[in-house]
């Protein structure tokens, strides 16, 4: 395995982690949006704030991690993607800025009217952002990004793979968030809330699963290479994902929230890793191979050292933070 593959794997690990953590983070916006009126939704919104408040900044650092490695290790492919997918990236960016700012503003807003306004902006940008990031992934995976960049600004992402990619991303985020929030609510003894979340998560999970099945048909026509990879080399992972997804729904139904969380993570991680396998050895599907896109060896080596140091420095701290937020002591009623 070449150095370029190791770096690509490190970057892809970032994508998987961002999908999980950032995804759960984004998905909480869906539940915030559908929490209900001022009077009835307060409890859920407090729970959401409590759950993602300590971690949202860290969650979005993963995006920076991905961008930085991509840019450093595969500069030409980075430039090709950003110049082709200018529009969806700009819209995702807009969503990220609005979302982070309004989440913080809501917490500190002085009146209910203000808080409601920021809350709506936060929640709706939580849906917009993953949609466009999913669309970007769909464009890359269906070979829409030419090696030299400057693909068509519209048709490169307005096609079935990107649109379904975006929708699936939104559904996945909501599903992940639902699994985590339900567990959080149950652990902090908000039983009425956990029941409400359980039902919604079941619905979201079933819909997302159905969406994935439906999407397979257009993707088969629209993105042949991706589809071949998913049904070929990556087929075991797709099966794992389907089983884990179904198991999650079952566990939620039976109110085994702790296990359901794990199932949701496995289901999402497996399908994302499956996409990575299906796309390998292409960095930009059918356009640029990982080996050909790599920068200078000294840079790749330096980058790996950096990743290593980051793992040593950051993972324990981040782990501690998640342990605290997910532990009993933190979420007492």
């Amino acid at each position: 395995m070449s150095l370029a593959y190791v770096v690509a794997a490190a970057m892809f690990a970032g994508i998987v982690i961002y999908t999980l953590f950032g995804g759960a983070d984004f998905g909480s916006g869906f539940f915030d949006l559908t929490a209900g009126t001022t009077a009835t939704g307060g409890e859920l919104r407090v729970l959401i704030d409590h759950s993602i408040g300590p971690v949202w900044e860290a969650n979005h650092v993963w995006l920076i991690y991905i961008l930085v490695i991509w840019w450093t290790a595969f500069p030409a492919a980075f430039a090709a993607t950003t110049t082709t997918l200018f529009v969806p990236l700009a819209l995702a960016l807009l969503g990220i800025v609005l979302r982070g700012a309004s989440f913080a503003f809501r917490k500190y807003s002085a009146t209910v009217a203000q808080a409601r306004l920021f809350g709506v902006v936060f929640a709706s940008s939580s849906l917009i952002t993953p949609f466009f990031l999913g669309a970007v992934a769909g464009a890359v995976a269906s070979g829409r990004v030419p090696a030299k960049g400057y693909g068509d600004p519209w048709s490169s992402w307005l096609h079935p793979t990107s649109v379904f990619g975006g929708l699936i991303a939104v559904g996945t985020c909501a599903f992940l968030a639902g699994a985590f929030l339900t567990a959080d609510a149950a652990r902090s003894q908000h039983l009425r809330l956990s029941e409400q979340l359980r039902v919604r998560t079941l619905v979201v999970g079933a819909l997302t699963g159905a969406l994935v099945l439906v999407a397979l048909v257009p993707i088969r026509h629209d993105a042949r290479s991706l589809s071949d990879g998913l049904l070929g080399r990556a087929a075991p992972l797709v099966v794992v994902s389907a089983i884990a997804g179904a198991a999650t729904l079952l566990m939620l139904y039976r109110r085994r929230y702790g296990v359901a969380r794990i199932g949701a993570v496995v289901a999402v991680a497996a399908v994302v890793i499956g996409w990575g396998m299906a796309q390998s050895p292409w960095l930009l599907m059918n356009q640029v191979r990982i080996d050909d896109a790599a920068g200078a060896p000294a840079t790749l080596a330096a980058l790996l050292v950096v990743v290593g140091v980051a793992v040593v420095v950051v993972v324990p701290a981040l782990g501690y933070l998640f342990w605290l937020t997910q532990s009993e002591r933190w979420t007492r009623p």
Partner: protein
Amino acid sequence: MSVVDIARWQFGIITVYHFLFVPITIGLSAIIAGYETAWVRTHNPHWLRLTKFFGKLFLINFAIGVVTGIVQEFQFGMNWSDYSRFVGDVFGAPLAIEGLAAFFLESTFLGLWIFGWERLSPRMHAACIWIVHIGTLISSFFILAANSWMQHPVGYHYSPVTGRAELTDFAAVMFNKVQLVTFPHTVLAAYMTGAAFVVGIAFWSMIRKGAAEDDRAMYHLAVRTGSVVLLIAGLGVAFSGDIQGKVMTEVQPMKMAAAEALYNTEQPASFSLFTIGSLDGSKEKFAVKVPGLLSFLATGSFHGKVEGINELRAKYQAEYGKDPGAKYYSPGGYTPVLAITYWSFRLMIGLGLLVAAGAALILWITRRGRVPPKRRWVWLAVAMPLLPLAANSFAWIFTEMGRQPWAVFGLMTTQQAVSPGVTVAEALTSVIVLTLLYAVLAFIEIRLELTYIRRGADPYVEPPDPLSADDSTDRPLAFAY
């Protein structure tokens, strides 16, 4: 307007904007950490109340710093794709560390700090904000290493095969001589900024009508400590800036010549405090000059020789070819926009001196527990936080505009750096949307900060024992909805 113009405007707007929040984050985190440590050691409730008061203002500020930082990363790919391609190999390595280690460290420990008041022991809790501060320092080190590389590229070789600069020596990039002076200069300026933020706000809270006696005593503490930090950091800024000027003269002599609009080599060279009339060197102008000062700033000796723009231009033309910027820059090429370099250099220094003078004045009028009258001094409270923000902005405008026409000195011009295929309409849309969005964010942010400043520090509550506390976190007010 060309795409280059628009892309530069966008870069200028969103970077200057981002850097309003960054130095506050760096400086304020240190001061808050100091206050919290003081509380842990003395148990004086004033320190805890100040920690929480400025902590809240800090958090509102931090969120905008984070989101506007993400925009930066995207913009390199979108507007400056040729630049990304060219330097990604080199520039990316320090940025990667920034993103990976420092940024994670900051956001993780800030998360612990926000939500850990009742769950961590006081010492652990104070340690969290110190780690956040250390994260901001690591972060600035690597970002500045990347910027220093653009001012003075080292540790790379140019590969004609790939058409890119490729990293050969990581340590050389990290310990670039420009970096070694830029880092202390910038971080100390950030301490000045954070301190001025504290001083201005605490001063206003102290002199406002109706403040309780005990609160006045508390704000008085903040005013005094902040002013002392500001003055010490200010000395450091002046000292490091002086060394930086000499390094700059060595690696980018044109920038120093442009800082004075010095057309012809002089020995010794005088420094004009201000100039009325044209700077183009052709006409007689009225200027107040300090003899030998430019020589001193540039070389360390009042009799040193400072090269002028004309000589340097001839030199650059011999080294880099006739004129890289003919299509876009002034017909002379190799010369930055003098009106901007000239004035931004003076405003940086002048405003920096002014804020230090403000701190000294505040120390004097608050000596031995005095509380000066509001009517007379309220302007000072308003000016203090704003002056260093303006000084910082002019400093960056000077150092970046002074490097023109280069994006990477001697290697790539700004014109070559821009994304070739982006249309004027696309670039214009993006700059307009971002500017409007940022304006709205600034408006909300300032309003929120003002609301909390007016509300003042919360009353002291005995912090609960982390092991037996109930969940009574600082509940967001607005969650009534």
